[in-house]
């Protein structure tokens, strides 16, 4: 049993590769720009990560069932937009607007779910078409013009409770709630079961259709919530808002460890994934990196994280191999 300390160190590195990389990123940028590790900036990172992060938590539900939702970017736009109309024309107020946004997201998720579960069209195609449809519907509603929210929404977006900015509170609440649902409720465990083997889940008496429908509703609701919380900080919604974000959202979820083939992933992982990507982006701004190089460096750091994760997976597989005699 030589080198067990080294073995243990190796195990630590590989098992927590993503987290260690995260710490490394913070340290590297911190030495370059000390303000990076200041409490204000760390708070900012989490605040800015909340946008993609909240949606990524929703995406984890969908990915767990081996589905995919490409429409999140459009839902991020249309959900808050409908909430905006409700606030402006019916005076529902900020809290009402938030509920309307989430409800609108749930309806959009319901449309996806109907097409996927009842009509049995593959999720990729369904959400690809609703990606166009939802954004098109928003453009139709606004004639492609910007939408200005009532002033009160900014007070909400920029508010904080006991010094903690509201977006962070929502991010934390969503993360914790999703974690509890996924790990502690029957529904959550059934989501994992469906993603592992849909046919077996049906045989075991799980209402597969209902589980699958729910994840799309959850995903879209959270995407709309994410959009609303971001827009609440700005007060104005442009037609291009959220475009192309589906890839950021999926990347955050996958970076945290969710598998596109279903059954693997946690809400916590999406939170980590989104925060890490945001930390890199913020770090590149802090170090004044050339704008042309920023996306390249971002890409390479994400690559490093995915690489570490694959090393970890390979190692896990080796560890899983059953030893039948003492080593």
């Amino acid at each position, binding site marked *: 049993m030589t080198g067990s300390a080294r073995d243990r160190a190796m195990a630590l590195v590989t098992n927590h590769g993503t987290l260690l990389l995260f710490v490394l990123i913070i340290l590297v940028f911190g030495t370059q720009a000390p303000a990076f590790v200041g409490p204000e900036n760390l708070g900012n990172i989490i605040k800015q990560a909340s946008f993609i992060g909240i949606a990524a938590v929703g995406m984890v539900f969908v990915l767990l069932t081996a589905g995919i939702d490409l429409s999140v970017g459009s839902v991020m736009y249309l959900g808050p937009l409908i909430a905006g109309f409700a606030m402006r024309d019916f005076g529902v107020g900020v809290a009402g607007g938030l509920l309307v946004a989430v409800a609108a997201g749930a309806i959009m998720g319901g449309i996806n779910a109907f097409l996927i579960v009842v009509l049995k069209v593959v999720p990729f195609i369904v959400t690809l078409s609703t990606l166009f449809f939802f954004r098109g519907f928003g453009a139709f509603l606004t004639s492609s013009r910007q939408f200005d929210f009532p002033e009160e929404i900014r007070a909400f977006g920029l508010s904080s409770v006991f010094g903690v900015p509201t977006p962070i509170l929502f991010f934390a609440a969503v993360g914790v709630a999703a974690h509890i649902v996924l790990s502690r409720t029957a529904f959550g465990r059934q989501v994992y079961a469906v993603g592992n083997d849909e046919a077996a889940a049906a045989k075991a008496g799980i209402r597969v259709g209902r589980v699958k429908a729910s994840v799309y509703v959850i995903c879209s609701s959270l995407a709309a919530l994410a959009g609303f919380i971001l827009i609440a900080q700005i007060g104005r919604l442009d037609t291009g808002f959220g475009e192309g974000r589906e890839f950021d959202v999926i990347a955050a979820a996958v970076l945290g460890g969710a598998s596109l083939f279903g059954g693997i992933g946690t809400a916590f992982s999406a939170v980590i994934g989104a925060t890490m990507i*945001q930390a890199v982006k913020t770090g590149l*701004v802090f170090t004044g990196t050339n704008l042309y190089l920023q996306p390249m460096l971002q890409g390479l750091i994400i690559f490093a994280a995915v690489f570490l994760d694959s090393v970890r997976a390979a190692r896990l597989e080796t560890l899983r191999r059953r030893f039948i005699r003492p080593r």
Partner: protein
Amino acid sequence: MRTVSTLFAGAAFAAASLGVAAPASAATICFAFQDLETEFWVAGHTAITRTLEEAGHTVIERNANEDANRQLEQVRDCIAQGVDGIIIIPQDGESAVTIVNEAQDNDVPIAVFNRPPSDLSKGIIVVADNASIASQAVDFLAQEAIANREGDGKLTPMIIVGDLGDPNAVGRKDGFYAALENYPDDFNTPIEVASEWDAATALANLEAAVTANPEIDLLFTSSDFLFPTIRSVFEPRGMWVPRGEAGHVVMGGLDGDATACQLLKEGFIDSTGVQDLYFEAEAALNAILAAIEAGEAQPNEVIEDPGFALTSANLGEREMDMWGCVLLSEGFLDQ
């Protein structure tokens, strides 16, 4: 119902001010634009389509969604449909040349609106030079910043850069640098902030940049549509204050939209570069309709829009030359 009616009322604003000669016969015009995602393009789009329709022409619209290839395909579809003339807002100068050639080869007159092709010799071309307009706006900002300087250290400028894949964004960035080169002893190296033309990205990056560099003396945004974003970062930090009050950051943008007009009037910003949207639209329309009238299949003409900077200094005299202020006066922001 109120929702819907206000919406369409909004769409009708910009049309009235264009004076376009009524043609002898109604023509079918293909209007291919690259995108409708900011106020500027929406206003331009509305101006052109309304004017043509009111003059009795048929307008066929094509939105390329920022895809040059798709735009080429759309223009070809228009040609196949047998339109009389084409107006394009190209994705960029290079694809514009190809599209102009395509139209002229097929004997369809074409006008290029707002973004100049890299080859100016063919087609009716309305040129607005992003770099020079940006440079005019930034020059004013630089002078303001120098005038307001306390102490004699160098000033720190910041620019919010647009999508690096968009030549307009790059032109504006070049104009910004060109203007600051005139004051080499007064400014530090500018801080660049990427926005990718996306409000959420701009929000995150600007917040990071301001946290990293709290002392900013001058801010230029490559597009006016980001002012609400800037406000949400600056306001909590006490940096969003009008001219003349302590803590005011000298600020400007480019586009000349209604929000910029309002902020200029309220004193929060100091200048914005303006493309003379109505002039450009009117010139393009008149030229293309004249060519159709004359049966000219390959009209070539360069119409220059020098643009200008609307600043806190010339606000009174030139206000109504800016399309955003026209919209504002028509109640655009009072939804």
